């Protein structure tokens, strides 16, 4: 498993962050134009918070290098091969959980659960599964 050089990693990280910023701004603008100003504000706040956390992780992973936490190195764009393995396994766990969550959500809706609430809960389920998986896999590998 080869590791890209520092310049490539830096370019990939900046490219990802700038693309994320673009997506957040466009989504917020489109939502605001549709009259959903509160949703647009939420999108902007949440999106910018995530990007700020990514920037913080980048600073930590570059400054602390080998002593930074696994999550900081992954989010900061400086993962080594074990960090990538932890991330990929956690992402796989989220993928598998989607196969379970989708039919469960469909059945819940069929049995009368509020579809909007079920849809709103799904991303949180995936976030929790991702974070818990990441922590468990990180501790065990």
């Amino acid at each position, binding site marked *: *498993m*080869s*590791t890209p050089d520092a310049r490539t990693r830096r370019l990939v990280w900046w490219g990802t962050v700038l693309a994320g910023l673009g997506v957040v701004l466009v989504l917020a603008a489109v939502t605001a134009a549709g009259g959903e100003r509160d949703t647009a504000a939420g999108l902007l706040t949440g999106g910018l918070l995530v990007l700020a956390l990514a920037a913080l992780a980048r600073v930590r992973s570059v400054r602390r*290098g*080998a*002593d*930074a*936490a*696994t999550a900081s*190195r992954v989010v900061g764009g400086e993962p*080594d*091969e*074990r*960090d990538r*393995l932890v991330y990929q396994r956690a992402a796989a766990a989220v993928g598998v959980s989607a196969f379970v969550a989708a039919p469960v959500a469909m059945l819940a809706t069929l049995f009368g659960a509020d579809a909007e609430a079920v849809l709103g809960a799904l991303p949180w389920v995936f976030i929790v599964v991702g974070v818990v998986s990441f922590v468990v896999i990180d501790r*065990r*590998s």
Partner: protein
Amino acid sequence: MRNEIRRLREEAGLSQGALGVELGVSRQTVNSLETGRYDPSLPLAFAIARYFGTTIEEIFHVDA
């Protein structure tokens, strides 16, 4: 998989962090390698063997 990384590192008088810097991996990864919780990729195994001037077979042992 058992390995001799901890012994070799201590004989070389290196900390886990220092070995990590030499190998281009984190201190956590060195720790996981030493405790057998993580098996390295082939390129990293070669890098470890090359760094200690020995062979992969002399560092890594498949559990019986």
